[in-house]
């Protein structure tokens, strides 16, 4: 009869009223993220040989790196990612042969100013850089 569908609808909403809720109370409860989650980035500076493959692999030219030549090896001095252009596609992480670049599970990347969006992963102290040219001791954090 006419109302049959209408009553079925009410019955469903009545049942759902008492069902367990699915929403997460965000700041207190954290969403469960899978291990492969594409969040922010971290770089193991010691593994990185500053070859620049990740820079060319990236479609939006997000990564910028400087290095200084020491003998036959190159040492990474500066590594920044302009996350406002990043597609989080993972081509850079995939292209790195030394497996130095990895994703993290951190997804809260919003900043107040545009400058803060630039994620500086390695920044050798300027002083050390000048001295480094002479004999190349340990680089910055």
């Amino acid at each position, binding site marked *: 009869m*006419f*109302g*049959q*569908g*209408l009553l*079925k*609808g009410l*019955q*469903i*909403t009545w049942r*759902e009223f008492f069902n367990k809720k*699915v929403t997460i109370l965000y700041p207190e409860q954290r969403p469960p*993220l*899978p*291990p*492969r*989650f*594409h969040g922010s980035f971290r770089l193991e500076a010691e593994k990185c040989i500053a070859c620049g493959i990740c820079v060319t*692999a*990236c*479609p939006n030219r997000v990564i910028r790196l400087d290095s200084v030549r020491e003998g036959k090896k190159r040492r990474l001095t500066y590594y920044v990612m302009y996350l406002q252009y990043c*597609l*989080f*596609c*993972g*081509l850079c992480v*995939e292209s790195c042969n030394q497996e130095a670049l990895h*994703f993290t599970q951190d997804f809260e990347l919003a900043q107040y100013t545009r400058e803060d969006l630039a994620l500086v992963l390695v920044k050798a102290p300027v002083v050390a850089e000048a001295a480094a040219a002479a004999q190349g001791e340990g680089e910055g954090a």
Partner: protein
Amino acid sequence: MQPRLETEEVIVNLGPQHPSTHGVFRMILRLEHEVITEAIPVVGYLHRGLEKLAEVRTYTQIIPYTDRLDYLAAMLNNLGYVQAVEKLAGIEVPERAEYIRVICAELSRIASHLLFVATFAMDVGAITGFMYPFRDRERVLDLLEMVSGSRLTVSYMRVGGVAEDLPEEFLPALKKFLDDLPACIDEYNGLITGNEIFQARTKYVGRLDPQVAINYGISGPVLRASGVYYDLRKLRPYGIYDRFDFEVPLGKNGDCFDRFVVRIKEIEQSARIIRQAVEQLPEGPVMGKVPKVLRPPKGAEVYHEIEGAKGVLGYYLVSDGSNRPYRMHVRAPSFINLGLINEMVRGWKVADVIAILGSIDICLGEVDR
């Protein structure tokens, strides 16, 4: 003779910022008190010049851009593009990768159709009808996130295979989702499809004649709802779709109601395909032999079509021998399905315009490219 009431036509702007235009889409409606006399669609607000950009990116770098076409079914866009490049450069894809691609593509189709069920219910006014399909779509997005690392812009497929193999916790979670799906679909049918008010709002509204649909190049669920049997997975099988048996749901009178019901049935069919693909999933590598720098032969050209979530999704690629395509064109189903909106909407009321536009299920990322 009773003097005819002199009514003056009202021109209303629907969009580009409007709650139910599914993106940045604008329609100039010429109204005679609620009845539409003409609808002029205006597109281009989301035009990012993808086809120009693709000419200065390597074949692999274009993959993340294809996610942003129909951002509700990124896996399907990837699948179409990657298969086109494999045809262009003649690359073999291992068995396991083919099956993983089918599983992910059909999951993306389910996510896109679930979103359609949700937004169409809300266009017609059922706010709660929006919430339940969205809750279930979350589970599909979690599965895609488990596999590729991100929910929507997955960039998971690569030329010659897929980025990474399936994680172990993926298959049990997928089986659980497939088992719960029929109960969810019964809930939508109970709450929305069976509802007399919903039927009154959608039955015989915006009827699309099959011949006109074919002539205007309409494809996908909109065409099948008008009773035309045209599904590339069956008629021109690509990849390994010929190994699965599933039906192609068809509508009878091509109205908003049929377009809604056809998509719900397609969700069931996609789940059926996934089940079969999971059973036949072989072991083995997920990446074929692909040269470090992909250089298709000079002058090679390919036009490859797949059955996307919104319709026939085609990629036309021309190679000049370098590692960048000379020309890339995307045949976007939403763009072409939208071409008929003026004729479909004329003569209906404002409320129906929203229902008809919703029933075509366009995605502006694909329309504007």
